[in-house]
């Protein structure tokens, strides 16, 4: 069973990443990068430069391992699944920071610190919505959270949850309005000095993370593998795919404001909204 689940996780991550590349229409440009030279920057931090994409990829794989593929069936069936995903989110901030720090160049460095400033407060709404989802389940396990949605999905019971989590998804996958690491005003920021295969691997890791975040969102808000007729994994894949497409669509459509303004919005608007969300979810759960 474990071997089967391991294969399922790998296949989901791989297939999902290929789907994400298609959503971004990036197949040929990504392939072309593998034919290009990988440029060395001036006195870089080589170890962190090479490992940052690896950590990003690893966090995507660990994140998707806590997702139940059928009711009662997850590769990491932990009683604290939400905490494991939460630590993945926190480590993404670190990973993106290291990616921007390592080339020893001004634009990546600015992108790295900017992302740290935005990434930290994004953690807060994220954990509030996940904890709100844990209230009716009376457990921090994602299997229990799926189980608690047998009658009604959290997206209906906790209407603010999914919209708030989409903001987190955009920030975790460096996309559109929350892409403060790789913004255009700093010549694609943390990626500004990436070339060739190094650039491609970072982009692939970023797309793999899109699969992981969407799978978590599908599990927490859309009932994960629950659904009629079709088997559990198929429902999970369909819901994950739909959320990936939605994230890409929002990323292409919504404008990005300046970082200091976004910081105020995160603390003054989004955080009180997630308090409100917790209150509503708590009252309904009682």
């Amino acid at each position, binding site marked *: 069973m474990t071997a089967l689940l*391991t294969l399922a996780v790998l296949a989901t991550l791989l297939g999902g990443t290929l789907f994400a590349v298609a959503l971004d229409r990036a197949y040929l440009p990504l392939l072309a990068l593998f034919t290009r030279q990988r440029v060395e920057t001036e006195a870089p931090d080589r170890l962190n430069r090479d490992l940052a994409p690896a950590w990003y990829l690893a966090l995507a794989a660990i994140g998707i391992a806590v997702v139940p593929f059928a009711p009662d069936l997850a590769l990491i069936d932990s009683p604290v699944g939400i905490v494991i995903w939460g630590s993945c989110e926190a480590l993404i901030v670190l990973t993106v920071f290291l990616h921007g720090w390592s080339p020893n160049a001004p634009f990546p460095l600015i992108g790295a610190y900017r992302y740290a400033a935005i990434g930290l407060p994004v953690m807060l709404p994220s954990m509030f919505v996940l904890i709100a989802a844990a209230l009716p389940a009376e457990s921090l396990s994602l299997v229990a959270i799926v189980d608690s949605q047998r009658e009604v999905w959290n997206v209906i019971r906790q209407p603010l949850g999914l919209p708030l989590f989409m903001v987190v998804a955009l920030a975790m996958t460096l996309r559109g309005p929350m892409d403060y690491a790789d913004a255009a005003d700093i010549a694609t920021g943390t990626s500004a000095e990436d070339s060739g295969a190094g650039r491609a691997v970072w982009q692939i890791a970023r797309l793999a993370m899109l699969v992981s975040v969407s799978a978590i969102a599908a599990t927490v808000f859309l009932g994960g593998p629950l659904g009629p007729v079709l088997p559990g994994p198929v429902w999970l894949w369909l819901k994950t795919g739909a959320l990936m497409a939605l994230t890409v669509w929002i990323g292409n459509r919504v404008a990005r404001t300046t970082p200091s303004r976004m910081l105020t919005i995160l603390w003054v608007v989004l955080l009180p909204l997630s308090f409100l969300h917790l209150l509503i979810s708590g009252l309904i759960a009682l």
Partner: protein
Amino acid sequence: MQTVIVILGWTALAVLLARAMQPVADSTAPQAMPFLGGGTPDTHAWQRYHFRPYSMALLFVAFEMEMMFMYPWAVVFVSEGIKALAEMGMFLAILSVGILYGWREGIFRWQ
């Protein structure tokens, strides 16, 4: 145990994959120079960087600690009932005063 094995396994796999896909980088001195649109820097980019939202980061630590209490709280919430909701409400209200104070002091404005 399985949790630890899976996490270590995925990490090792990702490191191997990323290493295999990324060739060793190599450059001449003019190619290695940081990109500034043709301009030149006076110094290395690594610096004691002025991280503007440092006071925001302190407020963040307060909320992270609060998050630690919320994990066990979420599990017993339904059995404890309205009492648990009121207690967490009070806790959050106290922390929210911190946000309002910080906002007034301009700590979210890159000061």
